[in-house]
């Protein structure tokens, strides 16, 4: 029982990161119908920026906020300078995917060149404390991360449903042309969408770094795959789905790796991969997503 509780919390701890990154993916997908394969590397890059602030003596919470602000700027600029030139949401998704893969390479290698490929040490954001839950020692870190995730979900729910900006974001997603005619500044809205996603990604990055107690250039790659899996499971157009999907993927991976010997830690990625294939076969729109009707 103690081991089980431990594994559940380990799974949740990993799942929170996937959920936050999946949230970033979903925000971009909702705003522009596109997938950003550089989302994870963007998160890694902004985490290095946070680390630079931290190294200069800025407290961690301020460094995180600063990194999120910088991330917002990078995301918005990427949209304005690059994605728009490819036609934005109306452009060819294939070309945009290739461009985001190009960004992936530049950010990954660029971070290595700027900050060095060796992992840099980072303190744990919520400290090293532990709480006893059902006989298992649960680190305060997990509870803190779950709290942050809950705040993010509530915040984004309010943003999308209760603010004018959220309304604009939803309008642009549903029909760009009509939204433009109704007076929504489409370009600015989409820039904000990409900026928000990168800012959320920065949070995912700093939390990952704080969990690993280090930051290195390849830390977000596996997380990105899990985040895509989470978004597929939850539905690409549902923020709630992304969060639930992330937590499920984290839990399932941890429990399968822990209890099924054939898979073991070497094949950590397999359960998530199989889950995605099953979801695509059985319920392609995901748990919370809305089914799309294709029109020519």
């Amino acid at each position: 029982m103690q081991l089980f509780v431990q594994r559940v919390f380990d799974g949740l701890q990993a799942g929170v990161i996937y959920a936050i990154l999946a949230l970033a993916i979903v925000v971009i997908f909702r705003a522009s119908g596109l997938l950003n394969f550089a989302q994870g590397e963007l998160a890694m890059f902004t985490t290095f920026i946070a680390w630079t602030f931290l190294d200069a003596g800025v407290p961690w919470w301020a460094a995180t906020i600063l990194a999120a602000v910088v991330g917002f700027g990078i995301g918005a600029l990427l949209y304005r300078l690059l994605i728009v030139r490819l036609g934005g949401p109306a452009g060819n998704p294939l070309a945009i995917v290739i461009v985001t893969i190009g960004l992936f390479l530049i950010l990954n290698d660029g971070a290595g060149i700027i900050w060095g490929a060796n992992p840099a040490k980072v303190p744990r954001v919520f400290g090293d404390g532990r709480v006893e839950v059902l006989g298992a020692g649960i680190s305060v870190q997990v509870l803190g991360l779950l709290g942050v995730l809950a705040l993010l979900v509530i915040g984004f729910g309010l943003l999308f449903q209760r603010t004018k900006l959220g309304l604009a974001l939803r309008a642009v997603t549903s029909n760009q042309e009509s939204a433009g005619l109704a007076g929504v500044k489409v370009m600015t809205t989409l820039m904000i969408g990409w900026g928000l996603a990168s800012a959320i990604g920065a949070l995912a990055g700093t939390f990952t770094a704080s969990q690993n107690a280090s930051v290195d250039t390849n830390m977000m790659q596996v997380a990105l795959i899990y985040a895509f899996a989470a978004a597929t499971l939850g539905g690409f157009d549902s923020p709630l789905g992304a969060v639930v999907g992330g937590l499920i993927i984290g839990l399932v991976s941890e429990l399968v790796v822990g209890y099924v010997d054939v898979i073991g830690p070497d094949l950590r990625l397999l359960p998530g991969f199989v889950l995605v294939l099953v979801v695509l076969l059985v319920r392609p729109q995901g748990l919370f997503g809305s089914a799309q009707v294709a029109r020519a």
Partner: protein
Amino acid sequence: MSPRLRWAVFGVLLVVVAALPQFVADTFVNRMSEILWVAVAALGLALVTGYNGQISLGHGAFVGFGAYTTMILTVDYGVPFALAGLAAVVGAFVVGVAVGLPALRITGVYLALVTLGLAVLFPQLVVRLGDITGGTVGRQLLPRPGYGDAALLEELGQRRFLAQAGFRAPAWTGLADDQWRFYVFGVLALVAFLLVRNLTRSRVGRSLVAIRDNETAAEVAGVRVDRAKVITFGVSAGIASLGGWMFAVLNNAVSPTSFTITLSITLLVAAVLGGAASIVGPLVGASIVVLLREVIPAEQQRFSQVVFGVVLILVMLVAPGGIVGLYRRGEAALRRRWLASRSPGTGPDDSTLDPTPDVPTPLQEA
């Protein structure tokens, strides 16, 4: 170029390339062999990207599958190289169909997502199956204990055994091993390129282009969309796996680090840079990618990923059809000018005369 001139140029190039190994150093011959396997693997990817309008980030895994299958079958089980190649291609086809079936039924970029997972999963799988694959160390020409020609290994000792193992030139050819390997690769690459060329011009190929351009219309016109897409993905995986066979034959060693996501992305760069919607494109792209790695000095190697990233973005912004697309555009412009100068004022619109109209590639159209 008129078709006849095109064939003539092609023939001359073929003769020159075939003669080259007689005059250049071994290392250069091996470099050309490397270009050929990258080109074949990129060709497999181009079939998916250029004609199917989908992106695979997992073709490196299929290359790895082919290379490991070849290595294990030939070294441990004494299977002839040709048969091992057949097994690699057929096996990859089956895996490709199994992966493509869920991912391709739905329109969108799901194939990219699933294949990204495949690319990252493959090295993990290799390590997990370490008993057969040699784990993180990988495999060389030595059979694992109790398999292969253990008696011969015992009798000759490791050094002399290795001198005989692997893909050797038959005595009747009078060729060095490197040269023989290059010629075999050349023939295989030619077969693969002709196969893709004929496939894309066949009923299947036209259905693919129809699907790429308008899936609903294609379906209404009677194209069995799901089947065409899944089978093409299987064939493309099989071709990539042939590239893997060539990898194993060339390097005589495999290890999981050779088949990471980096390889998949390198293949994407080769296909996109050369021109994904053409047959020659992957060969052009592969040559550039391999030679680029060659000319970048060792201490600057760490910049190579940045360079590839910039190349991908620039190609998409400036020349979505890749180098071959640029060439086609230049040729069309020259032809227009030539026609205009020949019959000024009365020259017919060249689009009605051009036997090879500038077909928009999936990456060009908005």
